[in-house]
């Protein structure tokens, strides 16, 4: 059978598909759009599911080997970090000495400069405006107001082609092969990111909320159920969460500067 015949057969069979009756979506949507609506974004049965999950996880945590295994990684938002050593997986803010791994001056450590070639293999390049349109139903794209002369990103990628993860890239104006900053904006439930054995991990804060600072090089694995790819990260990375969005700022900047950039994020015009 030719490809055309096969396609025709598929069309013919698929048209006979017996779907459940379409419920009254319009009626329910309109009632939820009234002013005194119930809280949005809560799926039916969500609370029941959450309760079951919490009970299940709590039960597992009562089993010592499971608890030990679970605690061998650090989770922040959708990012899971597997430390180099499980003995002391993370430096607490009280004891951490950033100077131990960050150059004492504010000058970026050139050896850790991420390269554009690391990111240029990414698919889904868009203009900023196109990206905003694509992801608008899921989250806004913020831009850093610091440094004040940073401007709009030089490259914008929307991964997955359906509005899942946005990556903004600013190049070094003195060397456009080098990436000054890249900001990954990842909504809950879309992608999982695993970092394996970063050189250093440290807890810090962004806008008063928990954040994690990690230093490469280390392999970074992205997966979303359909795609799975790994790349080597050679820069400094700041990870924090706001609401359902995980932010990942990759740069050559020391931690204090990266935090300033993170805290300056504002809705794009």
């Amino acid at each position, binding site marked *: 059978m030719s490809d055309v015949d096969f396609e025709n057969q598929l069309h013919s069979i698929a048209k006979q598909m017996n779907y459940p009756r379409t419920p009254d*979506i*319009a009626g329910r949507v309109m009632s939820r759009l009234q002013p005194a609506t119930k809280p949005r974004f809560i799926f039916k*049965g969500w609370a029941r599911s959450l309760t*079951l*999950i919490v009970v299940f996880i709590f039960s597992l945590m009562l089993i010592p080997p499971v608890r030990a295994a679970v605690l061998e990684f650090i989770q922040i938002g959708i990012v899971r970090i597997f430390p180099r050593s499980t003995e002391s997986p993370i430096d607490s803010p009280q004891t951490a000495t950033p100077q131990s791994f960050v150059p004492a001056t504010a000058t970026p450590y050139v050896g850790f400069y991420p390269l554009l070639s690391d990111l240029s293999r990414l698919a889904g390049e868009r203009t900023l405006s196109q990206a905003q*349109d694509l992801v608008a139903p899921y989250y806004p794209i913020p831009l850093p107001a610091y440094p004040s002369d940073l401007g709009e990103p030089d490259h914008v990628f929307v991964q997955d082609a359906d509005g899942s993860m946005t990556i903004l890239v600013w190049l070094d104006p003195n060397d456009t092969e080098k990436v000054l900053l890249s900001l990954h904006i990842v909504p809950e439930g879309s992608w999982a990111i695993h970092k394996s054995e970063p050189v250093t991990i440290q807890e810090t804060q962004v806008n008063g909320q928990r954040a994690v600072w990690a230093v490469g090089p280390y392999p970074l694995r992205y997966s979303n*159920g359909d795609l799975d790819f790994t790349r080597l990260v050679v820069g400094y990375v700041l990870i924090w969460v706001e609401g359902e969005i995980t932010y990942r700022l990759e740069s050559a900047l020391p931690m204090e500067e990266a935090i300033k950039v993170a805290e300056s994020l504002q809705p794009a015009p």
Partner: protein
Amino acid sequence: MDETTLIRRAAQGDVAAWEPLVLAHQQAVFRLAYLLLGDADDAEDIAQETFLRAWDHLKRFDETRPLRPWLLSISANLSRNRRRSAGRYVSALVRAFREQPKEIPLDEDSAQRTEANELWRAVQQLDLPDQQIVYLRYFLDLPVAETAEVLQIAEGTVKSRLSRALEKLRKIIHQDFPVLVEGREV
């Protein structure tokens, strides 16, 4: 009133203008979610959420473009996230414990509908991106151009991805779904 006018009015906050648009597209949105999730309750949740999110972001939507591809794109994305969420696994567990699991009503004498369900089962063995493109093109009967718009890819890419997906599907059918081969010589 045409779709462009309704979209413009809805974008200005006119809820009444949104209702006919929801009515016009709710079936396609629900069906795509149902195909991707295989559960009518989940599909209903996704369909509602699709129209609510679209409403929230109508101001950013180019009203001169057709609405359906955008809605289907949101529905597909939400469905995919739902598939990956822990909640879905819990829902599946809960369903497994139901005494009388919900079944799709089939006409007793409908051999064609049985074939369609067998085809659906075959498509479910494909990777999710391949499933999605097959559902859009063949089950929802979208033209190539509209399929491309839903998936945000070029029309040529739709054709090449479809070709690869159909090749895989043909092998699956021959191997695991003899009913389709015997009945239709697929």
